[in-house]
């Protein structure tokens, strides 16, 4: 009881350090995080507290006007009342961010960096490739494979025209 009275005197959210008396044994500090908090969530449309806790004089008079017929309120006044109670509308809270652009940019950047690292490695880390990759060696290798009739039915040698000594068209 005393605690709630103390809090309402000081102002709901303005307390960062406020005292609440516990059963005459001592004082406990009520921390900010222990109090009901405001948050905009789709699944919790009416949060525990209003967004604006300290109303200006104008807002206070608007709140008085709210007690009467709502048809007399203008659109701006209705929006003002909404903004007192809530921070973001549903449209605003559901708005997507542009974060995906940063994600894609980051992806390309790191892929690029990796490409540079690979090129550097090719030049400075790896030694020469074996002699079996030279074109002269390869020619002799292909000729040997054809002489051995490698895959003569449907594969390698099948594509070589032995009569005219050229690849089949």
């Amino acid at each position: 009881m005393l605690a709630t009275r103390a809090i309402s005197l000081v102002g709901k959210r303005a307390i960062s350090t406020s005292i609440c008396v516990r059963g005459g044994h001592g004082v406990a500090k009520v921390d900010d995080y222990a109090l009901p908090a405001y948050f905009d969530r789709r699944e919790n449309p009416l949060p525990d507290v209003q967004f604006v806790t300290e109303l200006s004089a104008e807002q206070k008079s608007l709140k008085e006007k709210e007690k009467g017929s709502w048809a007399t309120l203008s659109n701006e006044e209705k929006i003002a009342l909404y903004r007192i109670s809530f921070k973001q509308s549903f449209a605003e809270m559901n708005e997507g961010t542009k974060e995906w652009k940063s994600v894609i940019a980051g992806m390309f950047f790191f892929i690029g960096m990796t490409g540079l690292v690979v090129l550097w490695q090719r030049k400075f880390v790896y030694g020469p490739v074996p002699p079996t990759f030279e074109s002269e060696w390869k020619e002799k290798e292909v000729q040997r494979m054809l002489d051995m009739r490698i895959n003569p039915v449907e594969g390698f040698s099948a594509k070589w025209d032995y009569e005219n000594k050229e690849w089949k068209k």
Partner: protein
Amino acid sequence: MTHASVFRGSHKCTTMRSNSRPCGQTTPLASRCYSHAKVETDEEFDARWVTYFSKPDIDAWELKKGMNTLIGYDLVPEPKILDSALRACRRLNDLASAIRILEAVKDKSGPHKDIYPYLIQELQPTLIELGISTPEDLGMDKL
């Protein structure tokens, strides 16, 4: 084939034989081992919520709790429930919550774009009577 009722579900088993069969074994099609709890019908659900919001001295906490719970269910509330909730907002002099409720049910409809216009159409008399503007009227559905 045992003669059994056509209706499956939480009705009691109609044959003595099926009742005594333990539920680990395969049972004939017409008797299943469902719970015997009574299932609340849609009308009962709606009536319960209409009654909840119709409490004449409902307080702000109860309104919030009710609304947040209702939005937590896997359904869009019927117009009559929303009507009752909007009237509760009126009793509490809380226009902002009334508008928020309309936003919430629109959001709750998800991809089914035809639900919200139907709700507004059904609620139109109430909205006019209480002087509640829809979020669209106030331009709050745009950014």
